[in-house]
């Protein structure tokens, strides 16, 4: 008790070494076996003038108890009320099984499954994940994850440029109604390879891509068209027509899809005549907490024809020497550890543990469960739209169907309204003014199956109070 943070600084170093198991005897006998007098000597190849002093910018160590207390206090400071923010990260119910099992030491503390024989658990699980993701999207193949949805899209763009056999273009046409951070991430990544991204604006009425607008881009030789489903406003673009148009234009169609939507919405493989070519997105809705933004997992699917252009790890099913089924990393010739400068990407560590969680989540939910969750989200959104209309005369900014997220048009700046809602511990949504100045009066609001009727009423009340507070 009374263990103040710095008390630990006084500890006798050799008797108090968290996580280092060496006793003084161990140390002495090991040094003896090496034939040196002290540990310091082991660093004698480092130019003496480079040896650093104490790390004064780092505080003294503390016990787990003190650390947990500190972290609990910090976490408590951030535990505020109820959130209706979606915008790329969604608070779904996570069955307790998911993390109880995913956190087992054998999943949590294994490395990338390079030694296949000693990693069949992880390998088989990823094969199952690949199967689930390919079935959900309707594509033939999935990889074992990339970092997140945004970087997955960047990889898809690079892959699209490589894989398009009909066009040598280094230009990508991208829907203007995708997540703004996705677009920024892609620009950061692809412009280094002299790839250009053009965007298509959205319709002021529907929020979807206006056909007049993208028709203006006809015959301009792009490698790929990127569409988001749902789009950033929760709306549903006419992905069938867009896909056919893109193929018509010798573009690949890259789909960015919220995989939870696929519980009820059309699989990208079935868009238009030929379906999407590359499907990517954020796997977070599958059993992963919003958790301040990560770790999540980027998923990535395509058809076999272009799988050799896919980045990331891929697991294959094969046989062992005795003819028994087993799983192993395959197509490694695409990867940096084999192909180095010629690899499809530099990605190495990916999001394995999140794949584990997502696979368990999808196993628990199945088709029926996923449809049920997606429908509950959707119905909740409709109910909220209805409540806002009836009670507050507040309406969606755009017409047309939405999936579980909507842009509300407010009679004041969304930033102000949201701040006034936050004062009531209701995080009402994302300020669309940050996305586009034209939408400064709009907020993007999300409802998932975790929101009860009472929660929706709380939202409506907080909004009502907030509107008054900002003088409406």
């Amino acid at each position, binding site marked *: 008790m009374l263990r103040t943070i710095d008390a630990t*600084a006084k500890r006798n170093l050799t008797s108090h*070494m*968290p996580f280092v198991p060496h006793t003084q005897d161990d140390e002495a006998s090991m040094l003896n076996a090496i034939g*040196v007098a002290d540990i310091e000597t*082991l*660093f004698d*190849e*480092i130019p003496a003038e480079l040896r*650093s002093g104490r790390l004064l910018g780092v505080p*003294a*160590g*503390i016990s787990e108890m003190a650390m*947990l207390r500190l*972290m609990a206090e910090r*976490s*408590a*400071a*951030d*535990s505020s009320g109820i*959130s209706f*923010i979606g915008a790329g990260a969604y608070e779904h119910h996570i*069955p307790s099984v998911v993390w109880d*099992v995913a956190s*087992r030491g*054998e*999943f949590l503390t294994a490395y990338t499954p390079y030694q296949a*024989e000693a990693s*069949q658990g992880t390998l*088989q699980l990823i094969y199952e994940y690949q*199967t*689930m993701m*390919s*079935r959900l999207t309707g594509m033939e193949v999935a990889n074992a994850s990339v*970092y*997140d949805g*945004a*970087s997955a899209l960047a990889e898809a763009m690079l892959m699209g440029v490589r894989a398009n056999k009909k066009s040598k273009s280094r230009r990508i046409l991208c829907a203007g109604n995708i997540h703004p*951070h996705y677009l920024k991430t892609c620009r950061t990544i692809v412009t*280094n390879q002299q790839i250009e991204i053009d965007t298509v604006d959205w319709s002021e009425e529907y929020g979807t891509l206006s056909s007049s607008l993208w028709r203006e881009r006809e015959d301009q030789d792009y490698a790929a068209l990127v569409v988001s489903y749902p789009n950033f406003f929760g709306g549903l673009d006419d992905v069938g027509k867009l896909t056919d148009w893109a193929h018509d234009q010798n573009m690949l169609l890259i789909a960015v899809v919220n995989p939870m939507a696929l519980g009820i*919405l059309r*699989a990208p493989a079935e868009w238009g005549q030929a379906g999407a070519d590359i499907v990517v997105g*954020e796997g977070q809705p599958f059993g992963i*907490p919003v*958790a*301040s*933004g*990560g*770790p999540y997992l980027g998923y990535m699917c395509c058809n076999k024809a272009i799988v050799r252009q896919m980045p990331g790890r891929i697991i294959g099913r*094969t*046989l062992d020497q005795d003819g028994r089924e*087993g799983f192993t990393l395959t197509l490694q010739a695409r*990867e940096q550890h084999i192909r180095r400068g010629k690899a499809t990407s530099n*990605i190495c560590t990916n999001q394995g543990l*999140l794949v584990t969680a997502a696979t368990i989540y*999808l196993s628990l939910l*199945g088709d029926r*469960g996923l*449809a*049920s969750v997606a429908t509950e989200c959707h119905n909740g959104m409709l109910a909220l739209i209805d409540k806002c209309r009836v009670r507050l005369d507040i309406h969606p900014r755009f017409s047309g169907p939405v999936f579980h997220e909507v842009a509300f048009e407010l009679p004041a700046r969304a930033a102000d309204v*949201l701040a006034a809602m936050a004062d009531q511990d209701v995080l009402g949504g994302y300020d669309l003014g940050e996305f586009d100045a034209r939408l400064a009066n709009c907020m993007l609001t999300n409802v998932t199956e975790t929101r009860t009727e009472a929660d929706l009423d709380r939202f409506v009340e907080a909004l009502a109070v907030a509107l008054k507070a900002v003088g409406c």
Partner: protein
Amino acid sequence: MLIFDHSSKGRGATAQFGPPMEPASDLPAEHLRSSPAGLPEVSELQVVRHFTNLSRRNFSIDTQFYPLGSCTMKYNPRGAHRAASQPGFLNRHPLAPEAQSQGFLACLWELQEYLKDVTGMKAVSLTPMAGAQGEFAGVAMIRAYHQRNGDDGRTEILIPDAAHGTNPATAVMCGFKVREVPVTREGDVDINALRAAVGPQTAGLMMTNPSTCGVFERRIQEIAGVVHEAGGLLYYDGANLNAILGQVKPGDMGFDVLHMNLHKTFATPHGGGGPGSGPVGVGQRLIDFLPTPVVGREPGPRFRWLDEQDIPHTIGRLSAFMGNAGILLRAYAYARLLGRDGMYRVGRYATLNANYMARQLEKKGFTLAYPDRRATHEFIITLAKENRELGVSAMDFAKRLLDYGFHAPTTYFPLLIPECLLIEPTETECREEIDRFIEAMGAILEEARTDPDLVRGSPYTMPVKRLDDVKAARDLDLALIDPRPAP
């Protein structure tokens, strides 16, 4: 059995979702799914049992010694895991207002400060989501720097031939050409070759120190001089920063930019392939280019996000939100547990363990790749002689180790050393465990001499024997096709 093999139509873990519902009538038909996807239909118990048993088919740090060189498989403190799993962190939306994020931001800001100190850098951005993305950010900053200086002819990145595969892959992803620099027989960069390679086309040099050869690059200051004089910048691949934590700082060695692998040096669990986290640190010259978001502090103190408004020359974002935030929290918790003295011990005891193991293996008859050098946190043995004389390869040794209950070291990396094993015991393994490993290696060497087929046929005690990789790549089976439900 695959989870799909447990599936039965109509079964389900029905505590997890509501009753069947009518699809929403407002959605146009062309937007609706045409048929079920074919996810497994299984009970909750089947899920628990299937995945629990799958987990038991893995090796892991929690169950085995795992001396995988360059991968730093050390103990992942459960306390750090719990700290990051506090409800306030797990339920916090990444776009929550700053006022509701001060706890989280405080952790990140402090972590930035610690990482600056341990690397000797001027500023840090935590956003890269793994080592490779950190490399990307670093090299992209080098590119942006030359561009801003109007120095457009710098199209080449120099990389020692022993480097990790992500280094050349990153350089290419950033639009550079790669020129390899050879390494001497002592494991150092060949300085003469380097001098010959630099020029006005040199954007920078990527290297790591200690190198992937498991030795410390002694002439690092000279190397830095050569590159800097040529107008290039020095990139430090800090994946193995644990080797020198608290001993020597990359900034002091002359590096301009680096990434570090928090999932190695800062002990966050590897998760069977991630997630990781690869923050970047920069010296003064690259400060304007840091990827966003970064956490800033204002008087109060009040923490806030810095984005492109604050860092106008930023190379930009690398992810939708703040990288692998939860891993950053774990690393922060670990940093607090260790403190400065604990960090100081990391490099020291990792080095003690590696040198001890190297010497003991040598006494058992193994050949060190660099017998005259100090080992760092890892070291290399080469089994070229055993392969030649006994027909037992490094891979055979690796597989046989599995039967002895040890994960294999890294095999065939770096590529330039034939039949090599790169061995990294880490500081969290105790002497007895290391001795057991040494005994096992000795026993396998004996087997290789007396019964080489035994070693070549291994492993025998794993769920499968050696797998047919050629078949895997030829008869691509990447997803289960059948049974699929009828539409």
